[in-house]
């Protein structure tokens, strides 16, 4: 039986892990390879490096990180952050990563996903979706250059419909919009329709983050996760809000996610991936132990 996956995510800046594993004695807590090896030994099912390097000149450092990791760690590795061109993807795959996660570039140019999938195969194209519940105040939400494209009209939110009592509020497929800039800006894009469109254009998997829940540690947005998962036929990784083992269970079972991404609960606590898996197994969730 296919196991549900547990995926730790490490933020990497200028080639160094920030907020890495802090409760064990790594020789070098900022070394991505050391962190990756630690999670490998713990039985993580995959690993994600989120490259948060700001400066353009330093962006090549991640390739070196990926190369070194691939020498020692033999599990699926995804890299996200700052991917803008097909050459960026090729360089990462050649360095030894298996999948790339694309967010901003897909929002700016959805057809980038079809070009990338055509070139490298859908299996390595993860689309990261940052979704946020639509509130009555969508007046600052903006569109994109491609909003004139007739083939994309299904994913667009119509601004006038968003004010007043008809405003969709977490009910069915119209309750979430795409957000950017870490949840600070809203786009006039229906998150669930966006997911369907991304699948149609060639995405192979989703990393779905609730920007309302991210950082709260009070659980994933289960309704969002389940709605997206039920509306697409490719795997969904739930992200944003995990604080306890129960949250992982809820995301996988109630949210129908195929995998759960977690950062801080593994980095900061004496809570191991093995414990998480044993807990899930005791609740009859198929996991790899």
């Amino acid at each position, binding site marked *: 039986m296919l196991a*549900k996956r547990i995926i730790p995510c490490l933020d990497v800046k200028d080639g160094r892990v920030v907020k890495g594993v802090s409760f064990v004695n790594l020789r070098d807590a900022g070394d991505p390879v050391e962190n990756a090896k630690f999670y490998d030994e713990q039985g993580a*099912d995959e690993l994600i490096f989120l490259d948060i390097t700001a400066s353009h000149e330093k962006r090549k450092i991640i390739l070196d990180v990926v190369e070194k990791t691939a*020498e020692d760690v033999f599990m699926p590795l995804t890299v996200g952050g700052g991917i803008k061109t097909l050459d960026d993807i090729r360089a990462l795959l050649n360095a030894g990563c298996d999948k790339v996660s694309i967010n901003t570039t897909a929002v700016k140019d959805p057809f980038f996903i079809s070009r990338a999938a055509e070139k490298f195969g859908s299996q390595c194209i993860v689309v990261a979706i940052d979704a946020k519940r639509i509130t009555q105040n969508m007046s600052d939400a903006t569109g994109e250059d491609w909003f004139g494209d007739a083939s994309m009209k299904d994913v667009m939110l119509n601004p006038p419909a968003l004010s007043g009592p008809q405003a969709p509020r977490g009910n069915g497929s119209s309750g979430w919009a795409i957000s950017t800039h870490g949840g600070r800006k809203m786009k006039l894009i229906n998150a669930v329709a966006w997911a369907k469109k991304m699948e149609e254009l060639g995405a*192979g998997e989703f990393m779905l983050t609730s920007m309302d829940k991210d950082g709260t540690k009070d659980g994933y947005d289960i309704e969002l996760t389940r709605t997206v998962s039920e509306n697409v036929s490719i795997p969904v990784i739930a992200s944003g809000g995990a604080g306890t083992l129960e949250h992982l269970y809820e995301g996988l079972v109630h949210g129908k996610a195929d995998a759960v991404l977690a950062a801080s609960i593994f980095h900061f606590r004496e809570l191991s991936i093995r414990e998480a898996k044993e807990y899930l197994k005791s609740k009859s969730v198929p996991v790899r132990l």
Partner: protein
Amino acid sequence: MIAIVDYGMGNLRSVEKGFKKVGIDATVTSSPQVVDDADAIVLPGVGAFRDCIRNLTDLSLTGAVIRSIQKGKPYLGICLGLQVLFSESEEFGRCKGLDIFRGKVVRFQIKEKVPHMGWNTVNIVNRPPIFSDVPDDSYLYFVHSYYVVPEDRSIVAATTDYGVPFTSMVWKDNVFATQFHPEKSQGLGLRILAGFGEFAKKA
């Protein structure tokens, strides 16, 4: 020396590093001559069947791969390297394969999500020598949307369930081919690569 055939499909570095990790000499190559001269060959790869056959043909590697197999050289196919051994794939209409084994490559028609992505168990039905260290029902890493249907069931070495039971490994004489990725299956996967390296040494 083991030749890892590079035909521009997917992550070959992991396979190369995997062999290196278990102390086995392997070289990535796209030269038909090097493939012909190698003691054993590995054909990895993820992506589309049609592109795989086209790239192998464009690089004049098809002949070298078929010759190697027919001469009895140890062969390890991974993912696409399994699928291309069969007669044809239904991906993009019809596409001819290398026809080492009679059979087809078909898409999952199931209610579960496709691609089949993640860790799944293998049920060993005919244990190949390179699998000596792998317990039955072990979890190995998969990522694929198509699977092989061999006409000759005697070549089926392992099966896996995902909506339907499918062939996750074949083995006949010198030919081993897996739908899962040993190079992505942590310690267990490395043991499979090591097992192939040992088999190649003895061959």
